[in-house]
């Protein structure tokens, strides 16, 4: 009998097991973790999408864990990406120190994410939320370097603020409804006073917004994504940040939906999401580190998702949830690519590496499909989500938001091209002569996701099935689709197979033509044999145009960036860092101390909020 506690205990006990395995068997941790993740993944898929209920009464608090259609969607995302991330980590992390610590936290994070989506009561939700935060925090500071500590502290500080907000909201809700059960609270929410509603909704939205890196709460994300090991970054960006989306979905459609302020909530969130998408894209354009670039890209994509959710129409939610899945896939692909390049060349800086296409062709292919998908170019999966999003924006008369979204989407080409150009195209230099393709255990996840985005583009309907069910949980939303056709509210439809067929046919015809024409007289020459105005470059001259690649665009948006909030928040972040400086003194090197501090803080927060609202547990 599969039920939620089984899955969770597999994950958490597995984490401990992996930690133990590392003590006794070399490579034991990675194999254990992979098997555990595979097994848990199987369990998640085997769990009936509606069911597996389990409840536990602890005194006056009842904990309820249950799978709903909505949580099943996210659980599957977590399970698949988690397994792929661990598979990827097997060779990526090989030979590094503290592998037990790494895999334990990895599995704990996965378990916590599953716990969040399966939680039907606020206490366990919050508990798993904290577990997720600190296990991911442990992974951010994994490398143990000064930079990663800074990033970790920033991440932790923001997460703590988010957690505090969520906690406050929970406390307020409990004060009103006298219950921790999600269903109870949702039921009673519409009856609460307007002030309470606003407070709860904004607290929850901000709390979840931190995790989904909604601007202006995104400041932690670039650093944290950059510093965490790439195997985990794929999950971090692909799945963990989606927990914020999961929460926002609940907030919008479960709490806010029955109140008078529903419209305002949605408008605010939509605009926040839209601006997040645009500004994050602009920031991504000017990054020179691949993982930071992808981090900003991730923030921007989460902005789209928030917009889609906040539109509140069936097509919008469908677009958002579809993009959630797709973003999980393609951002994991891109982070894995960046990790692969890092593994082979030792850097993720876009300025230092170039010309890897011949050395790592499959990685390049992954990156290519990744960027095509992110940029929303047909016929891959990214396009459908974009198409649905625009249709949803149009049908809800968001004229200006669509422009903001479109600018973000077009400007995304800039950074995406830079990503693939800097790593894989350009001059093949001597420094990359020794580079080999990454081992199979890293290729398998990448290729699997590549095939997935292709499949999603051809048969979006298959993925839309679970999404449709999830939408049913959120409310009475109905949207129609067929395996290859997606419809819009204006009665418009898009047939992906016609599109893919046309593109494929012409591409193949063109490839045949250009391959056949002058076949014998066509030569491949080295990238040094280029038009250098007749001159012969010397050895140490750099012919790759990679540094400040997007400077023309940077110049154009300089006035916008000058006034943006990011600088302000960076400043704030700096100050927060110094505020949390003391954390470095108490850091002793193992996770337990930190866990203790976190719990202590939680307790303090609870007591503190309790004193405000006059409630005592």
């Amino acid at each position, binding site marked *: 009998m599969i039920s939620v506690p089984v899955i969770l205990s597999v994950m958490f006990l597995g984490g401990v097991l992996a930690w133990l395995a590392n003590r006794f068997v070399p490579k034991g941790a990675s194999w254990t973790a992979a098997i555990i993740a595979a097994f848990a993944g199987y369990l998640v898929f085997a769990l009936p999408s509606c069911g597996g209920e389990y409840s536990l009464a602890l005194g006056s608090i009842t904990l309820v864990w249950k799978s709903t259609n909505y949580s099943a969607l996210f659980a599957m995302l977590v399970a698949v990406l988690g397994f792929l991330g661990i598979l990827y980590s097997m060779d990526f992390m090989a030979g590094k120190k503290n592998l037990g610590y790494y895999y334990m936290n990895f599995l704990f994070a996965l378990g916590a994410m599953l716990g969040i989506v399966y939680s039907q009561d606020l206490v366990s939700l919050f508990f798993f939320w904290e577990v997720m935060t600190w296990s991911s925090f442990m992974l951010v500071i994994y490398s143990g370097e000064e930079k990663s500590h800074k990033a970790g502290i920033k991440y932790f500080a923001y997460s703590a603020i988010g957690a505090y907000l969520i906690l406050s909201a929970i406390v307020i809700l409990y004060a009103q409804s006298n219950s921790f059960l999600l269903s109870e609270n949702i039921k009673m929410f519409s009856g609460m006073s307007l002030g309470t509603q606003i407070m709860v909704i904004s607290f929850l939205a901000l709390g979840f917004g931190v995790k989904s890196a909604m601007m202006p709460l995104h400041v932690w994300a670039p650093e944290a994504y950059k510093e965490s090991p790439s195997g985990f970054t794929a999950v971090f960006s692909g799945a963990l940040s989606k927990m914020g989306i999961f929460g926002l979905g609940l907030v919008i459609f479960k709490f806010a939906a029955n109140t008078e302020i529903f419209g305002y909530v949605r408008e605010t969130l939509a605009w926040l999401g839209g601006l997040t998408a645009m500004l994050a894209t602009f920031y991504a354009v000017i990054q020179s580190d691949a993982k930071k670039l992808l981090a900003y890209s991730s923030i921007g994509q989460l902005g789209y998702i928030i917009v889609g959710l906040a539109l509140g129409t069936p097509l919008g939610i469908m677009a958002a949830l579809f993009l959630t899945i797709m973003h999980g896939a393609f951002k994991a692909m891109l982070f894995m690519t960046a990790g692969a390049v890092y593994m082979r060349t030792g850097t993720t800086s876009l300025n230092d590496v170039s010309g890897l296409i011949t050395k790592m062709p499959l990685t390049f292919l992954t990156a290519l499909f990744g960027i095509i998908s992110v940029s929303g170019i047909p016929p891959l999966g990214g396009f459908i989500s974009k198409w649905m999003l625009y249709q949803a924006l149009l049908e809800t008369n968001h004229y200006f938001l669509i422009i903001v979204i479109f600018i973000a989407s077009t400007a995304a080409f800039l950074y995406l091209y830079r990503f693939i150009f800097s790593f894989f195209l350009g001059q093949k230099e001597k420094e990359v002569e020794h580079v080999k393709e990454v081992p199979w255990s890293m290729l398998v996840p990448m290729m699997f996701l590549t095939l997935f985005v292709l499949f999603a583009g051809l048969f979006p309907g298959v993925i839309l099935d679970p999404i449709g069910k999830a939408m049913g949980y959120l409310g009475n939303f109905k949207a129609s689709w067929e395996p290859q056709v997606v419809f819009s509210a204006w009665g418009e439809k898009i047939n992906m197979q016609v599109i893919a067929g046309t593109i494929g046919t012409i591409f193949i015809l063109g490839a045949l033509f250009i391959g056949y024409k002058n076949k014998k007289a066509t030569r491949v020459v080295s990238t040094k044999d280029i038009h250098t*105005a007749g001159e012969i470059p010397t050895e140490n001259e750099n012919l790759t145009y990679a540094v400040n690649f997007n400077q*023309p665009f940077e110049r154009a948006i300089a006035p916008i960036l000058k006034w943006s909030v990011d600088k302000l928040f960076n400043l704030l972040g700096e100050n927060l860092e110094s505020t949390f400086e003391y954390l470095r003194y108490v850091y002793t090197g193992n996770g337990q101390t930190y866990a203790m501090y976190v719990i202590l803080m939680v307790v303090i927060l609870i007591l503190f909020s309790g004193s405000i609202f006059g409630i005592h547990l």
Partner: protein
Amino acid sequence: MREKETTIYLGPQHPGITGNMMVKLKVTGDTIVRAETHVGYLHRAFEKLMEARTWLQCFPIVCRICVPEPDPNEENLSRVIEEIEGREVPERAKYIRVLVLELSRLATYLLWMGGQSGSMGLYTMPQWTVGDRDYILDLFEQLTGGRVYHMYIWPGGVRRDLPEGFGDKVLKVMDYLEKRLKDYDDLLFNNALFYKRAKGVGVIDKNKAQEWGVVGAPLRGCGIKHDVRIDEPYEVYDKLNFIVPTYEGGDVWARAMVRRQEFEQSISIVRQVIENMPGGDFYNKIPNPLNWRVPPGDAYVKTESARGEFGYYAVSDGSLKPRRVHARGPAYVHGVSLLERILQGANIADVSFIMNSLGTCPPEIER
């Protein structure tokens, strides 16, 4: 170790380069961190060849020193010989020389207008101006027999007298050019886009300009009034009525406006010359050209060419052949050290634009 900055070769084979030279750009993004000028692609060893030729045989050589405007070179060599030898030049020859020099200035400015606009993508302008320049070349052809290289100005005067009715033809061409100048204004000088591109680009510091050796229109574009025609009047420039325009700013725009004004001034000078052309001899004949020895001595003369001060230093040791003839064109400074300096921090898009506004001419750098 690989450099951090990207290397971009602008030239020698590049549509944006003026002539045959190379500017090696080190860029980050599209901002130039460092620029190095490389010349020598056109080095023909003219100064060496001149030492092996008689004084008169040097004339076919010097006119090839600066291809777009050969006449200041002939003028310079003639004058430097005349100064060493102390030879008098007839008044009529002086007027004819000024006529030739000013026509050559007009032709060069027309070519410059084409180059300046071609370097920013306005391809109609070169088509017009280079086509119109041919009218001046036709005049040269009638006068001297050569379209590009004239070998017309000789020590002691000029080689031939003006042909019949030449003055009228010149005036006709001047009228035409004046009419066309309005079109050029519409297309280039009054174009807001040209202003946007040129303003504040390639700025030369006014306080440093003299020290850096800036001459000609770039110097006048900095607001410094300096012109060899006024400072050290040669031929009959002291008898002619013209002004030397200056502009403030030191950028491409200022230089363009200076040149545009000078274009008008040149037309007026040509008219005055035709009007005041005296009669008389056109050539103070040198004795036997094959056995013509210039007395020992040295001299430095300069001429205001269309791109700035053009100086010649010549040394004679009393033999048939020159000991040394050294040409110093304005591009020697403009094209190398000044260009390298003002390209720092510029945009890649402006390199060719700035080069054209400085009047860089590689053959006169390396000779």
